[in-house]
């Protein structure tokens, strides 16, 4: 159940957008398709919605084969990055659009619109035009419009991509809470790993038209299947033969089973953390090692630029060997 994707291939001319994608997305969950831009995640989402056709493969939604159905008949809610608001209609009219097309009775439409306006906190804006709303409000309107038709799945294509950092974060929390209320199978595309880790029940990492790994946020963060997943989910640096996260490196002022040692060659403070670059002098290293410590640690160890330090992986840290 949920969404079953089997053997999807899609090429745009010579460009391979998706290659042999098999994916099953369970009902009622919030799933993120995560990957770099141009990796094929939006194309996959559009194929599920019927806005794009695959060269081969099938798409099943809630047990029904929808591969050859047009977008109009899939009963899928779709939210676009740039809102796709109907500019000449009020907020209420926008939300009612899908219901009016289905020729629902007027009072039923009205009741449903009121309910949805409340759900997305836009009650007092029902008579405004989309141009009179902020970006965040417009996207909430678009979400209500998509939910109005009671879709079997809700698809969001980089829904917060056009918003500024603060609104983005608010909407992210709000989407999580909304999903806990509505429980519709939801898939959203993002290239922001923090957004995916924070909001989704499960993540699908897609790169260059292939699925790299599927799992819960914890799975992916702690047990990445490849260098790509490790480096995409957060910053990484190379210490000896290993790729490791900069905050998983133990830093000391004395020799103690160290992997590498050398002077601190760069010091950047960002808020509560201090980002260091250490250039190892005892073992040959292609590039300096990135280390992140808290400000308290840095003070306790009396670190400063030029100080000689010893580095080793922290006990229990995840890393991928080369």
């Amino acid at each position: 159940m949920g969404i079953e994707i089997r053997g999807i291939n899609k090429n745009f001319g010579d460009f391979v957008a998706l290659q042999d994608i098999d994916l099953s997305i369970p009902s009622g969950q919030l799933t993120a398709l995560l990957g770099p831009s141009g990796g094929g995640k939006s194309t996959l989402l559009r194929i599920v919605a019927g806005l794009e056709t695959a060269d081969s493969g099938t798409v099943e939604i809630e047990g029904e084969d929808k591969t050859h159905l047009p977008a109009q008949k899939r009963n899928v809610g779709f939210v676009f990055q740039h809102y796709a608001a109907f500019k000449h209609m009020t907020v209420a009219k926008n939300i009612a659009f899908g219901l009016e097309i289905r020729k629902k009775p007027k009072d039923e439409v009205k009741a449903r619109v009121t309910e949805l306006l409340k759900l997305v906190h836009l009650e007092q804006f029902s008579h405004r035009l989309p141009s009179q709303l902020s970006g965040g409000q417009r996207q909430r309107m678009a979400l209500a419009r998509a939910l109005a038709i009671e879709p079997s799945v809700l698809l969001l294509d980089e829904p917060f991509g056009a918003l500024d950092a603060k609104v983005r974060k608010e909407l992210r929390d709000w989407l999580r809470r909304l999903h806990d209320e509505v429980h519709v199978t939801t898939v959203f595309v993002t290239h922001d790993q923090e957004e995916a880790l924070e909001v989704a029940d499960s993540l699908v990492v897609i790169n260059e038209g292939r699925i790299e790994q599927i799992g819960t946020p914890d799975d992916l963060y702690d047990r990445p299947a490849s260098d790509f997943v490790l480096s995409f989910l957060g910053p990484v640096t190379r210490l000896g033969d290993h790729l490791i996260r900069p905050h998983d490196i133990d830093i000391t002022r004395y020799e103690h089973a160290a992997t590498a040692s050398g002077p601190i060659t760069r010091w950047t403070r960002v808020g509560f953390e201090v980002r260091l670059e250490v250039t190892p002098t005892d073992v040959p290293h292609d590039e300096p090692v990135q280390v992140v410590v808290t400000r308290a640690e840095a003070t306790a160890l009396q670190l400063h630029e030029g100080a000689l330090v010893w580095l080793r992986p922290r006990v229990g840290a995840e890393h991928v060997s080369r």
Partner: protein
Amino acid sequence: MTPDAPLAAEAARRRRLRSSTSLTRSSALGLGVALTWFSILVLIPLALVVIQSTEGGWSTFRDTLTSPQTASALRLTVMQALYVTAVNVVMGTLIAWVLVRDSFPGKRLLEVVIDIPFALPTIVAGLVLLSLYGPQSPLGINVANTGRSVFLALLFVTLPFVVRTVQPVLMELDRDVEEAAASLGASRFTTLRRIILPALAPAITAGAALSFARGISEYGSLVLLSGNLPNQTEVASVRILTYIENGNEAAAASVAVILLVVALLAISLLQVLSSVVARRG
């Protein structure tokens, strides 16, 4: 009171001050130049025409309009301009659609060709039409000296108006919006009627108004083909010229005033129509 409150009050006071003086120096200068320019070029000449039309007294005005020949010229002009505008609304939008949404060989060429009727001196357009649809027509179609010649000439010169006003708006139209409508279950036709047309309505109206205004004022392109037969193919602009040639300037001004009123009426009517379409959505 929060520390911000005095600041907010100060800002509000300054806003009030600004709105009472209402114009900054530079915008006042700009407005002045624009209004002067507009007056010299448009308002004063128009006022003069209106004054001139009343010079012969009310009777000249009435006599001019009730003269069967003038009345028939006015009727022909307005009706043909209306037909042509109606055709342009449909065909112009269609051509704009094809130019924006489809790609085909020769598209760039068509882009240029569309403007030719507009760029061509109208008398040249008249010559072209005469040689193509006149007595020596290579196509065997002869519409010279008939009402259809007026229609054809107007169609030719007003072709670019709707195309050129609709095209940029259509280009700006987001494809996502149509996809959103489709994902909500709207058919192609419903999307066209409820999403695309309301968005295009202001542009179509503007194009229609231009096309109509050009239609009732056209002279050069139809004067050769239509033959200017009184009560049959004579249009209002030709009628004005005849009055002037006969030294009856008050009568000429009267016809001009009527054309002016008709144009204003048509433009206001189209504005209302467009806002109705846009609102109905």
